[in-house]
């Protein structure tokens, strides 16, 4: 089958996924070595992050949630400043005041990260209203999960974005797990996308573990939102390969389910695709992975060597 995307794009998507995986694995390694701040990793969900974020333009904004490393890294965030934030250091994106779960990087357009499940859905309409009223063709991409889609605010957000014609690309990473509960126990239906029709919003479900499929669907969705100034809901069906947070526990997960989804790992699939297409040699891949691991090691060294915030900053930046 001929490649659907330019080789450079296919490689870039793989590279971004490898970076995300290496970053998350570094956090897992920290946890295996000893006490470390809790982190919700996105292992297994890299294709949704890399595929959608790579389809956005610089003037677009991203709102994300507690499982946000992929969105930040795909947008070009510095893993050193991210790890510094996780470790509560002053060199972090939020000067150590966010910690792992709430990293915002305004300079990259990753804004208002909220770990209140559904919080990002309530803020995205406001960010999109600003885009509409202040001019330009920017749009807002809002990442949330199937858990957030069970919050009331999901429905309030879609209703308002539709009735006000707001340029929001809703991106649901349906990763099958809502913290410690399988979505089958708590959610009607297998998918989120059909709910959009109730609000007059177009929606599409895509294989969220196929990064090229995600990228192509997102590219079309972004173009549509940009042109029509109307919301769109893109659902990426994917899987959280780890427990809810690190240190990780999956004792409550059926091992057969984990095995089934590991076999559909988005990075393995993209590697296999590129190798089969001849777009990548094993040796290239090994060099690429070694470079990314080195970068992440350096990022971790930077973070670990960074100072903690001065206690004098405890109550600063509460008010503007």
């Amino acid at each position, binding site marked *: 089958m001929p490649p659907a995307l330019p080789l450079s794009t296919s490689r870039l998507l793989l590279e971004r996924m490898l970076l995300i995986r290496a970053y998350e694995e570094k956090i897992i390694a920290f946890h295996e070595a000893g006490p470390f701040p809790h982190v919700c990793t996105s292992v297994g969900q890299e294709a949704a992050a890399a595929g959608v974020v790579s389809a956005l333009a610089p003037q677009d*904004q991203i*709102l994300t949630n507690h499982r946000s490393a992929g969105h930040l890294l795909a947008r070009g965030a510095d893993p050193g400043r991210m790890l510094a934030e996780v470790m509560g250091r002053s060199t*972090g*994106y*939020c*000067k*150590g*005041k*966010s910690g792992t779960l*709430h990293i*915002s*990087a*305004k300079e990259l357009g990753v*804004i*208002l*990260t*909220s770990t*209140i499940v*559904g*919080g990002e*859905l*309530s*803020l*995205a*309409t*406001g*960010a*999109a*209203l*600003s*885009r509409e*009223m*202040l001019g330009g063709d920017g749009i807002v991409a809002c990442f949330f999960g199937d858990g957030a889609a069970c919050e*009331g*605010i999901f429905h*309030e*957000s879609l*209703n*308002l974005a539709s*009735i*006000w014609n707001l340029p929001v690309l809703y991106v649901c990473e349906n990763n099958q797990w809502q913290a410690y509960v399988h979505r089958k126990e708590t959610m009607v239906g297998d998918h989120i996308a059909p709910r959009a029709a109730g609000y007059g919003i177009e929606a599409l479900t895509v294989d969220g573990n196929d990064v090229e499929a995600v990228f192509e669907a997102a590219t079309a969705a972004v173009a549509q939102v940009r042109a029509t100034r109307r919301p769109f809901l893109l659902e990426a069906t994917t899987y959280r390969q780890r427990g809810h947070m690190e240190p990780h526990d999956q004792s409550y997960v059926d091992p057969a389910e984990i095995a089934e989804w590991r076999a559909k790992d988005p990075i393995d699939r993209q590697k296999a695709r590129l190798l089969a297409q001849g777009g990548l040699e094993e040796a290239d891949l090994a060099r690429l992975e070694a470079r990314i691991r080195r970068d992440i090691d350096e990022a971790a060294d930077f973070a670990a060597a960074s100072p903690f915030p001065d206690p004098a900053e405890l109550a*600063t*930046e*509460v*008010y*503007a």
Partner: protein
Amino acid sequence: MPLLTVNEAIGQAIAEEMRRDSRVLIFGEGTATKHPELVSEFGSARVRNTPLAEGIIAGTAAGAAATGLRPIVDLLFAPFLCFAMDELVNSAGKLRYMSGGQFAFPMVALAMTGGGWTVGAQHNHNLEAWFVHSPGLKVVMPSTPADFKGLMQAAIRDENPVLFFVDLALAFVPGEVPEGDVLVPLGQAAIRREGSDVTLVSYAKTVHTCLQAAETLAEEGISAEVLDLRTLKPLDTESILRSVRKTGRLVVVHEAAAPCGVGAEVAALVAAEAFADLKAPVVRITGPDAPAPSSYPLEQAFIPQPDAISAAARRLVALGLPVSAPGSAG
């Protein structure tokens, strides 16, 4: 000077600020319907009706405030704020700090509360102290039409989220309101009546109740000073302490319940900073720790009355006599 009701004063402030700054917009449940004059002057993009959905109204305001607009949202009745707590407290109040100062939330959330309309506890809940207890927010609760205008103008120009409470009983009371800018700085109390024997600290409609009590006390030769807090956060601690150091006696009055209320904060401040100046214990006259009733006589019993305030002041002045227990209303 023109006479305006509180509602008219708020409307004038909003119109003047929208004229001054194109980033200011207002939305809420019925906002456009109730303000056709704003719609015709500023257009339907800046004056919007919303669904009856407080969470998304407040969240949209917070998201818009952080990205360049200056929204005012009308959430109608204070108990409805319960549906918007995440957006107000977790987003607008915290995300500036949590982002290391990357965002600011210049927004105003309007809500009505207070007894006088017999609307019952799901439309009347003096919950202003909840927001005083939440970092990153400012809280305003004025008592005069001129202050409603001046504080609204200041709130709209402030870079922080401001909870702006309208005491229902004051909404249609007329008063003198200057035209043009009448900015009242946030965090500044006002002395409504000077006195030397006892300080009555209050805010919103009970400021007027305190003034009535002060009138009665004056006839008895007791000189009461009435301090209107106006802003509950930031609290004007200097004005409170200055007055109490002068009088040595303090009665704090509000319709909200006593436990962990603004009166508790004022009493603790005075205990910590002006203990040596106190000639008598601090007394609170508040609404009871009960949902607001609807029946008219019950509601009147719920609201602090002038007699309870003057009685408390009288007891403090006549040292050695017992004072009323916290939480008792008139």
